[in-house]
């Protein structure tokens, strides 16, 4: 037994303690508020300059224009987003042709076939793909991939082209597809697999016929995230794709149906939304000029598209998730 004479103060009425508690609580709340402020600041920054831009260039002209030349040598600026959209869509779709099949197969392998040991090695290694700086990927595409493709498959390829850039974007986004899809596949309860085996299904049938459909919402949301990442990718395309805002040549062949030769788009240089933004920074950056404002309009378009895609991916993952 201790014979303490003073009883402990349990009321916690000390002014200093309270002040301290309040101060720290307030500090943390302020830190959290900064994240909200960041979103608000992005909105306000983009909107304020974009609004100025749209005062001189009508939105319809911006969205439907087929010519992009913000700093022409001889005058006659034009701000049409269509060629940039074509560039962005080219890169995104081509990259998706790599990242989606490869990423899905990787996820199936990791979740269904790999031994725990192999999984514990492969998973962190795959994350490396997303951790390499994108400017390094761009350099790879320009200096190694393009010459290799030119020497083997496509001799008529130009030095700056969409294909090499897209391949690198695809490789970079593999882990985005594979890790989210794998999480979704691993969440499928084992009873479903065992039920399949009980019915005499093979491992291949269980993997593709039970696990994949059961985790389809997670897989779909991973695709959307990977595509949204590819849309916003900047450095790979800036370094490897060049900077020519071109409209592809539409050919009237094949029973009179107009079509575009993919080689025209893929093997030539092009320009994405992000490249257009980076190109403008070569000029005056203090603000007030039309190209400067157009940068913010493009940023707004990019921000809106990626935000919408993320929200859709979120909704798919939430709403169509099978509850087990």
């Amino acid at each position: 037994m201790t014979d303490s004479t003073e009883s402990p103060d349990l009321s916690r009425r000390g002014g200093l303690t309270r002040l301290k508690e309040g101060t720290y609580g307030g500090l943390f709340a302020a830190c959290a508020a900064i994240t909200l402020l960041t979103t608000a600041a992005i909105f306000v920054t983009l909107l304020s300059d974009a609004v100025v831009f749209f005062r001189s260039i009508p939105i319809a002209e911006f969205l439907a224009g087929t010519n992009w030349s913000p700093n022409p040598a001889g005058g006659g600026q034009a701000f049409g987003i269509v060629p940039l959209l074509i560039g962005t869509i080219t890169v995104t779709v081509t990259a998706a042709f790599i990242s989606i099949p490869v990423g899905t197969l990787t996820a199936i392998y990791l979740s269904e076939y790999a031994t725990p040991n192999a999984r514990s090695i492969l998973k962190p290694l795959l994350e490396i793909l997303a951790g390499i700086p994108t400017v390094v990927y761009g350099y790879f595409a320009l200096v190694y991939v393009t010459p290799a493709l030119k020497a083997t498959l496509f001799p008529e390829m130009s030095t700056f082209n969409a294909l090499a850039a897209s391949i690198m974007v695809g490789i970079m986004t593999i882990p985005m597809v594979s890790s989210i899809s794998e999480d979704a596949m691993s969440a499928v309860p084992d009873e479903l697999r065992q039920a399949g085996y009980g019915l005499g299904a093979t491992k291949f049938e269980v993997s593709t016929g039970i696990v994949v459909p059961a985790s389809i919402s997670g897989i779909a949301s991973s695709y959307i995230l990977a595509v949204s990442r590819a849309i916003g990718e900047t450095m790979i395309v800036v370094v490897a794709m060049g900077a020519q805002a071109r409209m592809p040549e539409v050919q009237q062949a094949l029973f009179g149906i107009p079509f575009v030769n993919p080689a025209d788009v893929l093997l030539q240089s092009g320009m994405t939304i992000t490249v257009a933004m980076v190109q403008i920074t070569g000029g005056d950056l203090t603000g007030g000029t039309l190209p400067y404002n157009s940068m913010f309009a493009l940023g707004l378009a990019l921000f809106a598209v990626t935000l919408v895609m993320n929200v859709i991916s979120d909704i798919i993952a939430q709403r169509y998730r099978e509850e087990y």
Partner: protein
Amino acid sequence: MATDNANADGFGEVSRVRGIVFEYLSFGASVFGLVALGVLLVYVAIDAFDLANASPEWLLTYFLTLVVPFLAFCLYSANDRGVTRRALGALGGGLVAVAALFTAVETLVSPIPRLNWQLAYLFVVGAPATAYLAYVGSGGRVGAVGFGLLGRLVGGVAIGLAVGTLFLVFDPLLWFLAYTLGVLPAVGLYAVGRRRSTPRAQTAAAPVGLAGLIAAVVLRDVVSTYPSDLIIYLWTVAVPVAAAGGLLVAGRRGRTAAAVVAGLPLAVATAGGFLAAGAGLPAPTVLLVLVLTGVPTAAYVSRVVDAGEGLAGLGLPLLLGAGVIAGALIVEAWGVPAPDPWLDGSFLTGAPSRTPTDAGLYPAIVGSVIIIALVAVLSFALGVGTSVFLEEYTPESGPLGTLTRILQVNIANLAAVPSVVYGLLGLGLFANLLGLGIGTAVTAALTLSLLILPITIISAQEAIRSVPDDLRRGSDAMGATRWQTTKNVVLPEAMPGVLTGTILALGRAIGETAPLIMIGAATTVFRAPDSLFSRFSAMPMQIYTWAGFPQADFRYGVVAAGVITLLIILVGMNGTAILLRNRAERGS
């Protein structure tokens, strides 16, 4: 009941071909990206170190003097006959297999540019085998000691160089005053309060420190005579580091050991500093590197000697050093043709140039170090604050719960915003509206901090969430306030996880280029920045600039060297983060 059916049990044969093909296909898919990246990295390494021009004799010399002793060390440490047999089998069999396969491909298909079978063997068999053996070897006592020592040497040099770089921007004289008037008295008061358990002294530490800092700022221009730079670094960095090392050792092993651990490196560093000053080298950096390497190394050696296990491991740095020197001597003596690597001392210490052979990365490295240091401080503080607020301070239901959910969704969305958009935010808000200047280090640091903030927050939240609730309830039961629980229980438990997440996020920041372009960072600067508001370049910026140059020597030489430098720094940072996490996992 005999039926005429040949398949009496009624089951048909199931073809296994489809399943096996699918399994191999999916395995191929999972290594596709890694193999592609691996091949590209091999080519960058060949370009950066000019290995394509390395003669087989040169490769063999260094293989024998450097790699073979290292492998022997790892095998000795692993002390496992099975591993030894497998390793020798792989190295020997791999030699034959790679040579045969490579020659076959070269003759039958087509020559492979810039590769020969010796290099192929080095990268396909040598490098993975060495990495595997290093991993196995580090499990043994001897290997653990050897790698521990090596890590402290390399880490000490890296931190010493980084601190020296930071003093290029931060005024050493102001730091001298701030340290003497603010930091030292505050820490002293706090320590005395801790010792005598007088809370009043501890509480007084913060105001005293603050007053000291204000006094330092005021006095900076009033005082006119200052000690020399070397004395300032000695007094403000070397002595405290040595004292801290000594105190740590003294707690465990008495005063004599502490005096040696603190005194010896301090004496060596001081002597080195003055010698370097005499020789015209950057004396403060030499002093910093020596003291920041020496103190942890001495403390580690003293601990190993006390424990008496794995003493042979202390020879690893000597073994490697001797290997390098022996290799160099042989190359020199026998006139072995050596490659001329792009990534060498003059590349790391030189300024950018129009001629490839003169081009250097130094100003860009300094810029990157400064930005990353600022980003580390900002994103760590903001990330921890936000995650503590979300995890410890807000309830899960009620109106505040709704706020928490909104914050969470917002953070998840911020993490997915393209980095160019952050660049626009930096340009519009920090550079133009707030007037911090286009392309300055401050603007870059603020922009990149906001960019990695969501990643930092999410990982810090995970770390805080993994702290068991029992610990919190225990602390609450003893009458701790929320802040006391957070400070004394939650944060110390979660700190390794938080640090790991922060370092990984910093790895993202150091490679980001697009936001730097948007805020108008200089594509090339010829002098290292000397203030936070001067124009700067960063490593990825410089790589981007050089990649646009058409000369082959830039594309296949200088840029490769820059890429390898950037990747080595990244690997070092991520390796540190993973080591931290593993150590924390083992500890708990």
